[in-house]
């Protein structure tokens, strides 16, 4: 491995930071072309209703209003929302602006274009809509009854139904010494990037070109979805993504973005839509919201013999076209076995549609769903058996020598060492000492608990049929003066790729990262490819960049060999020069600048380039994984993820039994994501993920009432964690390089969010053990904690 100061493995300061620090970043809302009209969207106040009539007369008469468009009028310009992802699920016919019927509170009903946003919002208030309310489907029970049908043509409310049995599951339970069953639930929550969605669409009626500037994670994917939905030739669409103020999975679709596109197409003028926070909470992507019943059979030595998982997800209005959320439930089914050895397995998945907002991706994408119930279950079983949660995990972990490990459910785990990760985490948190002290603290009326969760983070999904299929090219280009550009569809959303991808090229070419620039965020400029989702950067994009850089290096060496009269085999690249290996004389060396100058400019290619070499100093490589398996076997098993970071997370919490308040004292993380490119950035990703996990377990809840109204659609009542709630986080790394990527890197970014809810819930249960508290629904609000404490005291002991 090359270890230069500026290359792989160094905590280099980020290249992108100076502009962000000084207010010189450029996010979509910062951009405005003269003549731009501003949009405001009238949104449904009903969770489920027929639209009888829309009267836009008064709105149109308001000074400054240029157009008001309804769902019906938009039909002349687009079709139903294109499918983002489909793994054997039902795909609804659904439009960007509601047509005939509304299906959730916040669904767009009509759109105003006006000279500024203030006027557009005034006009929205003047639109009159007559609704015929329908029965509302809020819960899974409502959906299954069914209380009403969201999509009449389906005849039911089921978007996804799937089942698999692998191994002799009945026999496993028949032989089991212990059998445990629990139903574990998780609240609905989301990523709420600080920059909400923003989209500028500019359609030129003469050229018929559409330029879309938007806050998205995936410009190429958005271009495809816009082309399909607007039925426009894709080569006439250009998607630009400038600086993006966070994504976390929530910016991976084109649903709301279709609205400005259609408005600009109608008006032939640039239009801008800036989502406000209420809109973002109502209609930005939602996640989680599930109930999972686990049944586990153990032998007398507490080794798992069989695992049954029944997962029921409350999708909301849709998770295929509005957003890509529904298959997350299948990802969970593939990964319930997690870090453990499971000889027999059964999984059943049911995803129902309801009158809640759209279902998308949010840091975890089902890996979190696989993790939370199982990691809770490990602790619950340990409690019931009267053994340590450490011990039950230890006995069931996959051993470090068993990798690559083919999990019973299909995935192939590349590398890892859970045992060592757990040892490190326990040592760093001083587990045994803590458990001892816990008893003394209890005597003083202090309830401190420690909880752990093992983490498996499948990264780099390649899903057949659609815009998440793993297609990832990168181009590396040398300029006439010997600098480099990397061109890729991989969007910077804050994860630091403007620094880490140059670090890869720096390590191949042995140049300074300041001489390398990442070019991204414009589909007219970069090769078609996917964006950052599924923690895929260090699996796919890094590998593509690395291979493209190697190809280019090869070419540079050939040309340099020709110029130096040396065999390219004998050459090396050192500090911006190509030279004969180990020789430092001037004659045996050529700078990249000199070489670039010669090829491009003075004299130019003739005589400079050896025969048979394509002298374009630019190479593209499209990296594909060798382990992805799309053809299902007899059990329906596939392998979609190439790399698997692992970890063990430990939370230490204190619960105030008077107020029910949970305070997280610290998080200790031991983590393995293979070869690390930039440790500082890797740690930042883990910490950010943990904050999302803490939010989900303690605070964040997209709460709907019986009528399908979201009761907390603003930041005053939807609580994101602040610096007061996120504790200190201490991170330790080991590196088990992936055998499936050229540099041993593994994607990462979701790992923090996946196990932290279980770690906290387990810690809270541990803290409240004297009260016999069993953690049930999330988030862990003070009211719930107090209720459980009271109930626990009544029940007097363990459940």
């Amino acid at each position, binding site marked *: 491995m090359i270890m230069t100061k500026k290359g792989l493995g160094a905590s280099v300061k980020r290249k992108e930071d100076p502009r962000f620090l000084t*207010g010189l970043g450029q996010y979509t809302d910062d951009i405005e072309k003269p003549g731009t009209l501003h949009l405001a969207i009238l949104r449904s106040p009903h969770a489920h209703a027929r639209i009888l009539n829309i009267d836009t007369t008064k709105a149109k008469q308001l000074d400054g209003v240029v157009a008001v468009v309804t769902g019906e009028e938009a039909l002349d310009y687009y079709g139903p929302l294109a499918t983002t992802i489909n793994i054997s699920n039902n795909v609804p016919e659904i439009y960007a602006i509601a047509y005939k019927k509304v299906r959730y509170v916040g669904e767009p009903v009509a759109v105003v274009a006006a000279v500024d946003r203030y006027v557009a919002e005034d006009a929205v208030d003047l639109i009159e809509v007559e609704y015929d309310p329908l029965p509302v489907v809020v819960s899974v029970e409502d959906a299954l009854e069914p209380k009403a049908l969201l999509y009449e043509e389906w005849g039911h409310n089921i978007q996804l139904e799937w089942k698999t049995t692998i191994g002799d599951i009945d026999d496993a339970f028949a032989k089991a010494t212990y059998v445990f069953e629990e139903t574990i639930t998780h609240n609905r929550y989301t990523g709420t*990037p600080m920059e909400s969605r923003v989209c500028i669409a500019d359609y030129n009626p003469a050229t018929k070109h559409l330029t879309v500037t938007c806050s998205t994670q995936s410009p190429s994917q958005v271009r495809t979805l816009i082309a399909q939905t607007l039925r426009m030739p894709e080569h006439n669409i250009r998607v630009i993504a400038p600086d993006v103020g966070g994504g976390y999975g929530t910016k991976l679709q084109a649903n709301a973005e279709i609205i400005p596109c259609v408005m600009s197409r109608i008006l032939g003028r640039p239009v801008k839509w800036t989502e406000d926070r209420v809109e973002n909470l109502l209609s930005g992507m939602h996640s989680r919201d599930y109930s999972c019943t686990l049944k586990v059979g153990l032998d007398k030595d507490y080794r798992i013999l069989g695992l049954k998982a029944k997962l029921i997800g409350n999708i909301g209005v849709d998770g295929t076209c509005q957003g890509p959320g529904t298959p997350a439930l299948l990802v969970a089914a593939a990964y319930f076995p997690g870090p453990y050895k499971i000889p027999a397995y059964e999984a059943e998945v049911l995803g129902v549609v309801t009158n809640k907002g759209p279902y998308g991706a949010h840091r975890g994408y089902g890996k979190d769903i696989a993790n939370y119930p199982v990691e809770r279950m490990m602790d619950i079983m340990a409690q019931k058996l009267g053994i340590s949660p450490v011990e039950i995990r230890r006995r069931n972990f996959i051993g470090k020598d068993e990798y690559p490990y083919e999990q019973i459910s299909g995935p192939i785990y590349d590398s890892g060492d859970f045992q060592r990760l757990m040892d490190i985490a326990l040592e760093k948190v001083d587990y045994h000492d803590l458990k001892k002290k816990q008893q003394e603290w209890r005597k003083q009326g202090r309830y401190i608990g420690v909880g752990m969760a093992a983490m498996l983070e499948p990264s780099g999904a390649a899903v057949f049929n659609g815009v998440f299929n793993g297609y990832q090219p990168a181009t590396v280009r040398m300029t006439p003066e010997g600098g480099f550009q990397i061109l890729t569809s991989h969007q910077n959303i804050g994860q630091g790729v403007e620094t880490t991808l140059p670090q890869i090229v720096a390590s191949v070419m042995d140049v300074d990262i300041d001489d390398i620039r990442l070019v991204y965020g414009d589909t007219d400029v970069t090769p078609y490819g996917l964006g950052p989702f599924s923690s895929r950067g260090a699996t796919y994009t890094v590998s593509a960049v690395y291979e493209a850089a190697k190809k280019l290096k090869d070419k540079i060496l050939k040309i340099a060999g020709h110029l130096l009269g040396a065999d390219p085999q004998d050459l090396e690249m050192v500090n911006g020069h190509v030279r004969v290996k180990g020789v430092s004389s001037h004659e045996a060396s050529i700078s990249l600048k000199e070489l670039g100058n010669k090829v491009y400019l003075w004299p130019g290619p003739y005589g400079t380039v050896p025969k048979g070499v394509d002298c374009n100093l630019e190479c593209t490589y499209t990296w594909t994984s060798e382990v992805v398996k799309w053809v299902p076997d007899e059990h329906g098993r596939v392998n979609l993820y190439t790399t698997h970071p692992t970890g063990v997370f430990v939370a230490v919490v204190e619960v105030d039994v008077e107020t029910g308040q949970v305070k997280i004292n610290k998080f200790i993380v031991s983590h393995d994501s293979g070869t690390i490119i930039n440790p500082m950035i890797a740690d930042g990703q883990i910490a950010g993920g943990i904050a999302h996990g803490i939010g989900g377990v303690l605070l964040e809840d997209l709460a709907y009432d019986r009528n399908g109204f979201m009761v907390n659609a603003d930041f005053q009542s939807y609580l994101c964690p602040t610096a007061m709630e996120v504790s200190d986080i201490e991170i330790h790394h080991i590196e088990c390089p992936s055998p499936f990527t050229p540099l041993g890197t593994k994607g990462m970014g979701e790992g923090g969010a996946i196990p932290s809810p279980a770690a906290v819930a387990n810690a809270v249960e541990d803290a409240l053990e004297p009260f016999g508290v069993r953690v049930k629904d999330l988030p862990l609000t003070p009211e719930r904690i107090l209720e459980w404490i009271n109930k626990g005291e009544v029940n007097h002991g363990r459940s």
Partner: protein
Amino acid sequence: MAEAGVRKKISVTVNGVKYEREVNVRTLLSDFLRRELGLTGTHVGCEQGVCGACTILIDGQAIRSCLTLAVQADGRSVTTIEGIGSPEQLHPIQQAFWENHGLQCGFCTPGFVISAYAFLSENPNPTDEEIREALSGNLCRCTGYQGIIKSVKAVAEKMQATAVSNTK
């Protein structure tokens, strides 16, 4: 909400430059700075006074520009992120954020830098807990606050050290 259409002339000094403009009385100060003056470093994350992304200084006090009308800034002096430092000459707070990975997507960053600026001028020698509390009015969805707290601590320590060496 003030009546639409009524306009008023205001005079505001922003980052040392005096601007005279006629604005609609209901224009938010955040919109005035961003759209009228093109100072897009002030970000809007909620328009509800919760996230702190829009934090600026008015006469040295940190306030939320999304909860303030442009007309309220009449005759006053405003400092935005653009007035704190430049890429060539980062303010020590900005430098500390850079060195300690105090930012990821950067959207919340101007608000945090301004909040930290106002906080440190009142409490140059804070404890960790005080830093957390002072910054609890700003939301960051990317960093989990680790790098931010580290940055503010680092700059406070550095400022302390300089203060001490200056008095020597």
